[in-house]
């Protein structure tokens, strides 16, 4: 493939990703604003509360079950006009940057929070991605050293991938409660500033990314090392380090790069959960707490831009560095 061809392919790739972004943005804005089309002709009638069987003893157990009759009645219909107004209103807001949300406490400006959250989330994401990729590659490279190294690498990847992020956070909270009640100190406060500090999200997100990277590297090497050309190279007496680095790792790299967008997708999902559960005021927390359609749509657009940038960069790298392996990249 000539350099001109490569450049053309990369330009086509970026154009396609941009078109996908427009499509995703259109669908996201259209779906998120659907509830704005609901027009209530009568206020919802609340469901009759459960009263249970009459009992004189409050210590007597009782059965909790839904009341079968009298489901909540909503007299409502969906209309296009208010829906369209909400969509166009959001598009105007997006251009002016005056995004707000209506809460019980009143109306609040969300845009400054999104800007702060964006910086924090991006910093967390990039730091943990860098740390995770580095750690994951090192652990994955262990699989090249010896049988024990491969076992350690495999075990790390398997444990890191199998234990969900939310479970690690819950364990972290329980450990914090335990250390505080038994020893008088909070576990997370040792390195950071309490449960809202940088340590819990950093640890959880780094472990996930590192495990994914190690898994990708180990699996790719596992498959490549069984190929005929590796056997041939060894039979010809090529030194082992050249077999591993020159033949195996070089051919395993595209497979690793193939998995990076999926890893980034998983990292973004994890980021939201981790931010929410560790009370980190990033985009994930804002997404969950200020649930106005404008906020939700804006954060979705930001996440899509991040993902498509990462996806395009990874695929461009594959195309430019390893042009012989371009199948399906663009």
């Amino acid at each position, binding site marked *: 493939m000539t350099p001109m061809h490569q450049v053309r392919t990369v330009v086509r790739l970026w154009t396609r990703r941009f078109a996908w972004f427009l499509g995703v943005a259109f669908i996201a804005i259209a779906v998120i604003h659907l509830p704005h089309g609901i027009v209530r002709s009568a206020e919802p009638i609340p469901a009759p509360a459960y009263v249970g069987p009459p009992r004189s003893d409050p210590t007597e*157990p009782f*059965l*909790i079950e839904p009341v079968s009759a009298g489901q909540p009645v909503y007299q409502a219909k969906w209309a296009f006009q208010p829906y369209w107004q909400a969509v166009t209103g959001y598009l105007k807001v997006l251009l002016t940057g005056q995004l707000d949300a209506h809460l019980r406490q009143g109306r609040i400006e969300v845009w400054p929070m999104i800007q702060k959250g964006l910086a924090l989330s991006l910093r967390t994401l990039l730091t943990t991605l860098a740390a995770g990729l580095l750690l994951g590659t090192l652990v994955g490279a262990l699989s090249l050293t010896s049988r024990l190294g491969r076992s350690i690498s495999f075990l790390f990847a398997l444990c890191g991938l199998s234990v969900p992020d939310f*479970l690690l956070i*819950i364990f972290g*909270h329980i450990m914090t409660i335990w250390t505080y009640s038994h020893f008088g100190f909070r576990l997370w406060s040792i390195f950071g500033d309490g449960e809202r500090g940088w340590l819990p999200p950093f640890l959880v997100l780094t472990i996930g990314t590192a495990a994914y990277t190690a898994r990708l590297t180990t699996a790719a090497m596992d*498959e490549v090392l069984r190929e005929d050309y590796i056997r041939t190279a060894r039979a010809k007496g090529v030194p082992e380090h050249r077999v591993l680095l020159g033949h195996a790792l070089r051919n395993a790299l595209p497979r690793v790069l193939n998995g990076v967008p999926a890893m980034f997708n998983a990292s973004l*999902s994890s980021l939201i*959960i981790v931010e929410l559960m560790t009370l980190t005021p990033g985009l994930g927390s804002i997404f969950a707490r200020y649930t106005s359609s404008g906020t939700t749509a804006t954060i979705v657009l930001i996440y899509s831009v991040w993902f498509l940038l990462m996806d395009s960069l990874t695929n461009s790298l594959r195309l430019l560095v390893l042009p012989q392996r371009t199948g399906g990249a663009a």
Partner: protein
Amino acid sequence: MNWPLALALLLLLGLVVLLLLPFVMAVPDPHMGVLVIMDGAKLRVPGYKPGEFGYLFGSDLVGRDIFGRIVYGARFTLGMALAVNLVRGLLAIPLGLFAGWKRGWLGRVVQALATGVGSIPTLIMVTICLAGLRPLILGDVAWLIVYGLVVVVAGIPRMAEHVRRRTEEVALLPHIEAAESLGATSGRLIWRHIFPVMVPDMLVMMATEMAWVLLMMAQLAIFGIYVGGTVPVIREGYPPRYVEWAAEWGQMLGANRWGFRASPWMGLYPGLALGLSAMAFHLLAEGLRLRGLRR
């Protein structure tokens, strides 16, 4: 020794035991609550910690036994995840097979859909769909169906793309060329010659997807999106307390998501159940993959 497969089978055996437990021993009713319990001269209100008053895993805020809810919840949660996975597989596998075999526009559509859907984190995509649709859907049954459908649809493009890629690889094998030259039809080639070669791969994919569905259900629950509704429980002299009703792990985790610090056991056990189940299917996928490689 295939350790991941052995460990996965052990964990899956645990899940089977959990499913069968109500048939072999008395498990506390998952819907039986209590307002107060006498502790000597004191009146204690729920939630009770694990081990207190005979509650093995503790109780929730209206005195329901969490162990009982975990045991009965296994049917709902695992059944739901299995149903979602089966429907996904039934739709995505034929689509991927045909797209991989025919190539052309169908292949490009599947590829574009996978990248397009993959361009938003799955969690966000499912959340916006469900959050956008929630106010339009009335009734718990309708909500259950929509929830299932959205989770099904979210995974189809990725699965179909995986199958398409694998089909393209398998279609290059010599026995396919031989069968084609003997005049086999497309349908026969796909179902009799391509699909059987892909079965081990499909098993790995289905096990992985099962794990992802369980994790997705847990993550959605943390966002407050779960199946089932709430019921108000009246307490004398207090405002009604709205509690989740159905014993479903995601719902139990989601309903107690704000109380992880005050009463961590309420979210820990359903989270652990979901996490261990997902882990079992992850390990199963890994074990099957290793088994395939060794063969």
